[in-house]
């Protein structure tokens, strides 16, 4: 899978940033500049493809 970041702008004015195709922490490094531009992250959901997602809340 090619590496890409998908950004969706929700009607409630939050932004969903999704990283696809990255290995390890590469996704975090790739999306960080975009997330920071949007004021950080209020919730992050990690997803190992085809596996149950583990969800945690990130303190701002």
């Amino acid at each position, binding site marked *: 899978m*090619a*590496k*890409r*970041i*998908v*950004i*969706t*702008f*929700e*009607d*409630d*004015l*939050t*932004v*969903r*940033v*999704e*990283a*696809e*195709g*990255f*290995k*390890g*922490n*590469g*996704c*975090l*490094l*790739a*999306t960080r*500049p*975009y*997330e920071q*531009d*949007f*004021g*950080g*992250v*209020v*919730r*992050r*959901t*990690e*997803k*190992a*493809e085809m596996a149950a997602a583990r969800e945690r809340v990130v303190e*701002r």
Partner: protein
Amino acid sequence: MSHYATTPMLEIKGLEELSAALRHQGFEVEVHAEAVTLYDWHGWPRPERAHVVIRRQHTGSASSNDVGFLRGADGRVQAIISDYDSAKFGAAWQRALVKECGVQRAILRAARMGHRAVRTTDAKGRPRLEIVGRF
């Protein structure tokens, strides 16, 4: 490993994204380093000043006043919209503008990082950017 992240609610962060968002919506805008005078529908100066201006002849309403946006000392951007124009440039319009500012912010970020932003709309009508390039 990949992830989803959800950000806080958007707000307008700068004049560059604001002017890009307004132009995307089809408006002709002026951008000024120093705030300039706004004019009413008679062409008389108003007390308000703004850094980004849609002049009344470009608002799409014949009897409109200038619409302005003033950047405060804290960097926050305040819309200056007359009561008359609030019917057209009301809360719904401003909300859409804030969302578009977010889109433009990400497009500007992608350009600065040498990435390419491909814009589409998803099935629910929400703006969607796909960022590709060398990560």
